[in-house]
């Protein structure tokens, strides 16, 4: 039983890492007043960037490629929604469709459609001595790929940056009231560009992490809605980095449940577990209703009447 719990926790951390990375980036983007519905596309671009380069430039090079792919995607979105002021949600949806299509096209062109799965070297877990032998949680927390440790560092750093620095204050001002930000001498467009690119870098990294630290292959559409789930995680974490990281952990646990139930031999349809993160998203979004307002200037369409 202890074994089952400890491997469940390990799987939880592993599946939560890419979600946490993407959601942390999206937190900053949304604090600047933008909803990046194209995050799903950014993640698949990152996955493809990593998968296409890992064999040539090695694992750290592939992580860099993933970040670059994420940045390229996001730059396209930024031109549309910040420079040209196009509608955020339609532009983001189109970016997702474009990225899913382009990665699929390139994948089939470069690697063919032979049905043989591409094998990609994966990042080995960095085992921290002593700490990793702690009972139950030891391996889950201290025997993970480098990206998980990056999350440990980034989350408190970003939390501190948003709430305690002058730049963080500017970011929040742009998200809450661009007019006030302008009055204070801050350029909303500049802040939004920087925030969006930060989100793009982390989104790309999240996609790279999916390939290089989790599955070790690429498949068309392998992001499987993680970008949308990350956006839900941001809302569930009420736009605060620490709570967002905890929410990502909850979703990691939901995905890891399928492995746990398999090992316990429970006879439930596996589609139920595959659908679980999406169902959880629906329930979680309803659960946070009315408790905490999003950034006031967060771009959106239909307004609910009271």
């Amino acid at each position, binding site marked *: 039983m202890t074994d089952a719990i400890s491997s469940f926790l390990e799987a939880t951390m592993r599946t939560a890492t890419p979600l946490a990375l993407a959601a942390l980036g999206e937190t900053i983007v949304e604090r600047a*007043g933008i909803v990046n*519905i194209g995050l799903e596309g950014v993640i698949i671009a990152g996955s493809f960037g990593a998968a296409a380069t890992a064999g040539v430039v090695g694992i750290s090079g592939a992580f860099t490629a993933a970040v670059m792919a994420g940045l390229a995607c996001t730059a*396209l979105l930024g031109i*549309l929604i910040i420079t*040209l*002021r*196009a*509608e955020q*949600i*339609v*532009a983001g*949806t*189109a*970016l997702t*469709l*474009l990225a*899913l*299509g*382009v990665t*699929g*096209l*390139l994948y*089939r*062109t470069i690697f063919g*459609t032979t049905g043989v799965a591409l094998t990609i070297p994966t990042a080995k877990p960095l085992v921290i001595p002593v700490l990793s032998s702690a009972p139950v949680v030891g391996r889950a927390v201290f025997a993970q790929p480098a990206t998980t440790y990056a999350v440990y560092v980034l989350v408190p750093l970003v939390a501190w940056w948003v709430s305690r620095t002058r730049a963080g204050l500017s970011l929040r001002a742009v998200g809450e*009231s*661009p*007019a006030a930000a302008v009055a204070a001498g801050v350029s909303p467009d500049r802040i939004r560009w920087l925030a969006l690119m930060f989100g793009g870098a982390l989104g790309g990294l999240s996609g790279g992490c999916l390939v290089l630290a989790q599955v070790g292959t690429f498949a*068309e559409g392998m992001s*499987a*809605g993680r970008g*949308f789930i990350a*956006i839900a995680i941001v*809302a569930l974490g009420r736009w605060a980095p620490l709570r967002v990281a905890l929410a990502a952990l909850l979703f990691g646990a939901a995905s890891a449940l399928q492995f746990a139930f398999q090992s316990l031999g429970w006879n439930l*349809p596996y*589609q*139920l577990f*595959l*659908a679980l993160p*999406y*169902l959880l*998203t*629906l329930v979680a*979004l*309803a659960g946070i*209703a*009315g408790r905490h*307002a*999003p950034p*006031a*200037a*967060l*771009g*959106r*369409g*239909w*307004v*609910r*009447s*009271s």
Partner: protein
Amino acid sequence: MIEALRRSALRASGVLIRWIILVAAVAALVATMTAIVGYDPWVALGSLWHGSLGTQYAVLSATLVRATPLMLTGLAVTLAFTAGLMNIGAEGQLLAGATAAVAVGLATGQSASRLVTVPLELVLGGLAGALWAFIPAWWRQRFGVLEVISTIMMNFVALYLVGYLVRGPLQEPLHIYPQSEGLPAAARLPLLAAGMRLHWGFPIAVLCSLALWWALRFTAAGFRIRVLGMNPDAAVSAAQIDVRRTAMRAFLASGALAGLAGAIEVTGVTYSLYENLSPGYGYTAIAVALVGALNPLLTAVSSILFGALEAGAAAMQRDAGVPSVLASVVEASIILLLLAFRELRVPGSVLRRLRAWRPTASDRASATGDSMSGRS
């Protein structure tokens, strides 16, 4: 009505000119992309033409067959977007409709006649689509959950539900393939004529487009939907519109159209239920509706253009070996180009009405948590 038709025709002629530019742009895009990924662009364009509009067979058995679900889901998106509802869930609603139609068709098709079974399948398919849309609509009104996210989540849930059903309760009797038993003849939509694959679903879709155009333009309910989409605050204060009820009805009708698309696809084309039933019709529908400038009649025409693109892409894969996923790259590029052109104020600005949703700079400046977030 005549006057409105005349004005529509005038506006449509403007849109048509843009479409010609668009078709040229698509041809250029396809040629460039096939050349980049290493195929002969002329061969690719040739098979694209041949497989879509080049022969009578291609039009009647590929393009229009492919256009039918795109027309209905495109209308679903048109209706939702007109009301300012971001329903990205046509894909899931389509699957819900397909599932309901197959379930009822297998249950009654053996004993009841076609005149009873087929209408029952289509009605229940529409209802199932509306039910699938009801959850995000209700979530939106009860809890303020953004429908963009919830409808996408419902798409995944629908996909896994179909995956479970075709390996469980609805699996074919031999339990070998992950698909349902084929529908009996009495549960199938008849073909329009022998020797072609086009079925009665196409005229039904065209009728739906006429009906939606009429309803949006000439009925009180349609007026309420349009006002809601243009300015929800004005809808409440000036037009005394019950926003919640109007939005809910528009969302349900949108889901019903997508559900009908699914029911027609299984009863007219595939005759059975399986997971990959839809190659993303519900997502392509967004491009269809935007190219159709959110006008139901233009959306119908635009769905035929997209049907031609997808049918042509399938032929391109068969004849020239170009991956058909190219079609979705072209579709996404079209949406992005339209958005960019609209904002650049160049002649392609066909989406004027969409501007209503986008908060202007002054809206953003004066936005309070109340009016923008929808929370009180």
